[in-house]
Every structure is written in structure tokens, then in C-alpha cells.
């Protein structure tokens, strides 16, 4: 039989199923995907398309949408979530979850506030914020990696603990006096350079760094391997426990950094800062292509996922729809994103 008749019979519906040999053949003969084709198959690409589509639609709905002021605010608003989503994506890539990031923002924020209120400069304030975050991340990571506790439970516990500690040490008071470095501190999180808000600059730089890390670093490769098959990673000699601890520390550090920048923007901090944010951060990561089953991560997914969520909020606002609908649409997109992922994978692995 010639090849052409063979392929003819294949396309006819209702034929006998392909033999294994034929399936093997079709798999082996698949050509490698080019860079461009590979890009079309990634989730961040399609979410970016959705963003552009929604953005385009909004230019017709509202005159305000494309104004510099609106874009400035929108990008700054999602920068905080995007930064945390970068860290969250690493955790999700290992098939874990970090529910404590919102509460940790509150704790880191309060500690920063207390340190600076006591007269220390912005550097000690920053180090305090990151130090607290690293400690919390370390505790999460050790419990999950070495004591093999479920990430959901450990970080849920930490969500409650971190929030409670921030309430206790803040004595339930708002902090707005940041000592001698107040101006610099408020500038860091609240102002802009070259027309771009500082938190957005941080997000851009970190996204570039993470892009490199996921593609070119051994650490990144190992995190992805652990998410794919932790047992295989261990057999290959990868220090699985230490790597898992490191992703939780990393996720915590991004929460600490976001808290530090966010206080600068708000101009004050109270112990409610960041409450409920864990849901937005997880949603941003998943919409950006992180797979809760592990093994998939995109650096650009974090800002893109966060951008879509902020865009939804902004669009509803400008279109005059009640802001109470925001969570509805965020949830809708989250489910759609996972559904899209499912559909694309079904075609690939069967």
C-alpha cells in the first residue's frame, strides 16, 4: 500500500482504530516545533491575546481607558500581584501551594513599619521585611519537605499564624510614621521613574531574572524536574528536600518585597494588609499558565496573569458595572484558564 492511500484511509471516519505501530509512527514522525509554534501553544500567549482583545474593546467603551493616568494606575496595581505570582509559580511548579502569602504581607509590612517607626532607616526596614519573610518561608518549606506535611495544610496554618502575629505586634494600630527615611520609603513604592511606577520596574526586572532562571539555571531545571516527577528527580541525585524549601522561601520573599513596596504606595500599613491576596496571587499564577499538578512554569505568565485580573477590574469600573462583580469574573477566567489547559493537554498526550 502506498503512503497516500494509507493516509486516505486514516482520515475516513468510522475506520478501525489505528494499530500501535501506526500510532508510534505518527508520534515519531512528528516534526519538531519551531520557536514560534511553541509560543502559540503556551498559555501566557493566549492570555496575552485575551488582554489585548479586552483592551481593544475597552478603547471603544471608555475614553478614559487609554489615558496615561489609567494605564499608570492599572500597571502599578497589578505589579504587586505579579511580583508575588513569580514566587507562587515556583511553588506551584513543584505541585505545591502557598496560602500564607497574603498574611505574610501583613506581617512583613507591620515589621517593616515598626522597625522604621523606631527610627531605623529604609535599609534595615527592608532587611527586616525580607528577613521575616525568609523565616516564615523556611518554616513552611521545612515542614513540607522534611516532615512531608501537605503544603495546603501547612500554609493554611501559617496564613492564620502570620496574621495573628501581625495583629499582636502592631497592637492593632496603623503605622504611618516611618522615621527619618519616610520620604525615600514612600518614593520607592509610590513614585515612578521615566513615567513607569517603581513597582512595575521591579516586576519587569524580576520577570527577566526569572525568565533566565527557568531557562538557564540548574536550580530552575531541578524545580521543574521535581514538579514533573519528584521520585525520578531524587533518583537522579537532585536534593529534592532542599529545593522544595528554597521555593517556599522564594515565594515568601516575593511577598515580603511586595509588602515593602505596597506600604510606600499606601503611605501607611495596618495588620489587615494583604488579606485575601493569596487567592489573587494563585489565580494570577494559574491564569498565567502554572499548572497545579506541577512541572509547568512560565516567568512571563505571572505578570500576564496578574495583568488580566487587574484589567478585568479596571474594565468593569470603566464600563460602569458594579465592582462587586469583579470576583465573579476573576473566578470565571480562572476556571476558563484551567479548562483551556485541559483541552490543550488532551490533544497532546493521548
Amino acid at each position, binding site marked *: 500500500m502506498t503512503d497516500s492511500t494509507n493516509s486516505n484511509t486514516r482520515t475516513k471516519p468510522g475506520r478501525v482504530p489505528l494499530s*500501535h*505501530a501506526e500510532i*508510534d509512527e505518527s*508520534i*515519531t514522525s*512528528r516534526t*519538531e516545533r519551531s520557536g514560534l509554534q511553541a509560543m502559540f501553544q503556551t498559555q501566557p500567549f493566549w492570555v496575552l491575546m485575551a488582554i489585548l482583545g479586552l483592551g481593544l474593546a475597552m478603547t471603544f467603551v471608555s475614553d478614559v481607558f487609554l489615558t496615561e493616568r489609567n494605564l499608570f494606575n492599572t500597571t502599578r496595581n497589578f505589579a504587586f500581584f505579579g511580583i508575588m505570582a513569580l514566587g507562587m509559580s515556583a511553588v506551584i511548579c513543584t505541585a505545591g501551594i502557598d496560602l500564607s502569602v497574603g498574611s505574610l504581607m501583613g506581617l512583613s509590612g507591620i515589621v517593616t513599619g515598626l522597625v522604621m517607626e523606631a527610627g531605623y532607616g529604609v535599609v534595615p526596614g527592608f532587611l527586616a521585611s525580607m528577613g521575616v519573610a525568609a523565616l516564615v518561608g523556611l518554616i513552611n518549606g521545612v515542614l513540607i519537605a522534611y516532615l512531608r506535611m501537605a503544603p495546603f495544610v501547612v500554609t493554611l496554618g501559617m496564613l492564620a499564624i502570620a496574621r495573628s502575629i501581625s495583629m499582636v505586634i502592631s497592637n492593632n494600630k496603623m503605622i504611618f510614621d516611618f522615621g527619618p527615611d519616610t520620604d525615600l520609603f514612600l518614593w520607592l513604592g509610590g513614585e515612578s521613574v521615566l513615567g513607569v511606577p517603581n513597582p512595575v520596574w521591579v516586576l519587569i526586572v524580576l520577570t527577566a531574572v526569572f525568565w*533566565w532562571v527557568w*531557562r*538557564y*539555571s*540548574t536550580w530552575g*531545571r*531541578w524545580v*521543574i*524536574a521535581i*514538579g*514533573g*516527577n519528584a*521520585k*525520578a*528527580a531524587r*533518583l*537522579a*541525585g*537532585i536534593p529534592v528536600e532542599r529545593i522544595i524549601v528554597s521555593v517556599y522561601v522564594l515565594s515568601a520573599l516575593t511577598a515580603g518585597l511586595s509588602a515593602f513596596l505596597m506600604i510606600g504606595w499606601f503611605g501607611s500599613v495596618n495588620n489587615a494588609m494583604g488579606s485575601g491576596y493569596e487567592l489573587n496571587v494563585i489565580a494570577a499564577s494559574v491564569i498565567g499558565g502554572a499548572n497545579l499538578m506541577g*512541572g*509547568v512554569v512560565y516567568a512571563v505568565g505571572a505578570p500576564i496573569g496578574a495583568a488580566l485580573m487587574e484589567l478585568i477590574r479596571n474594565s468593569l469600573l470603566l464600563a460602569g458595572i458594579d465592582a462587586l462583580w469583579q470576583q465573579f469574573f476573576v473566578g470565571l477566567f480562572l476556571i476558563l484558564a484551567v479548562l483551556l489547559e485541559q483541552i490543550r493537554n488532551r490533544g*497532546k*498526550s493521548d
Partner: protein
Amino acid sequence: MSLLELDSITKSFGAIHALQGVSLSVARGEAVGLMGDNGAGKSTLMKIIAGNFRPTAGAIRIEGREVQFNKPIEARQSGIEIVYQDLGLCDNLTAAANVFLGREMKKSFGPIKYLDYRSMNKRAGELFAELKSETRPRDLVKQMSGGQRQAVAIARTRLSEPKLVLMDEPTAAISVRQVAEVLNLIRRLKDAGHAVILVSHRMPDVFDVCDRVAVLRRGTKVADKRIDDTTPEEVTGLIIGAIRAA
């Protein structure tokens, strides 16, 4: 001199004697089939060679030197590589990434080290070519056939120039056509001078590629014969106990 020598290996778990005085030797370039029914002691023996268990009594010698493995990594350092039944591959990574997993090749840019994709893909491609496998280094393992996965797992063992490759049921879960491919891979390993221990339930595979066959039954070795001196019928009899020993 044989490469690996197991001398009267005994392993007990409490009152259960999983292995009793099992001796086995494998030479360079030789493939030995290890057969036996479920519970005969195959996995226990494998785990002792792989360093997962320590024998209760008996000695393991590599090239005449007595060795003791406390951990799998120590067996690996002594030149024993294992291809696990479930292969231990990461589906979400490419073939080359799996081959080099845990021992990635890196380039330096000042103090910064980064993954050297070009060298890894090239070397993995060479390994697949040596194994005469059509596996492509850049393909994701997720998209591969069972035979190609085996090739990736075997190529990985060759990276460290092992002395002995231990294969656990490499043909158990793949299609007929791919079995031939895997058996060819085993021949390549023999040709390259590696010793191979093939644990298998499949009689045709053992008679196809192995030089010798050892049969375990209830923790003791009941036969160790050259393939040319035995028949599948005899081996089957030995496995099920119809023939007591040979």
C-alpha cells in the same frame, strides 16, 4: 575474572528468608537473565545490588574487591547503574534534559553558570545514535513511545560509563515492535563491554539477548545455565518448580 560477584547472599526480614545463599557472577560484555516467579526473591536481590538493602550475610565483589553499599548512590559510584521499571523520567522535560538530569553540563559567563543546551543536546544525540535509537534530544518525553523512553533511560546510564547495568522488566509495558528496539539497546550495551543483568518475566526476551539465565525459586538459586544449554521449557519448569533444580 567476573565483574560482579555475589557470594552466598542471604537476606532475612525477621523470620522470612527472602534469599538464602544466592551466588551469581556476571562478566564484562555478558548479559544474565534473572528469572523467577513473583516472590522468588528477584526484587530483593536487585535491591541488594542497587544498594537499597544490605544483605544479612554474604559478600558482594566488584572486580574482585569486596564492596558494601549503604545507599543507592554508593552502588552508582561503584559503577552500577539501574534502569527502573517505571524508568524514573520526567515527562515534562526533553530527552536530553532527562539524560543529564542531576548532572547538567554548564557554561560560565564570568561568575554566572548557565545550562549548556547545545553540548547536552549534542551529547545526548550521540548517545542515542550509539544506541541506534531514533530518539531526538529536543523532544519531550511526554510525547515518546515506550521504546524511546527506554532509550532515554538507557542513554542516561551510559553517561557515567557504568560497569554493570541492571534492568528491571524493561519490556514489560511496551508494544511488540518496541520490544525489538529495547532488545537491540541491550545488545549495544553488551557490545560496548558493559555487563547486563536483565530481570524479566518474558522468556523470549531472555533467550534472545542473554548469555546465561539464572532462576530463583523461594529465595534460592535453582539453576544457572548457559542459554545454549537450556530450553524455554526447562526454564519454565524450573520457575514453577516442576523441575527441582538443574
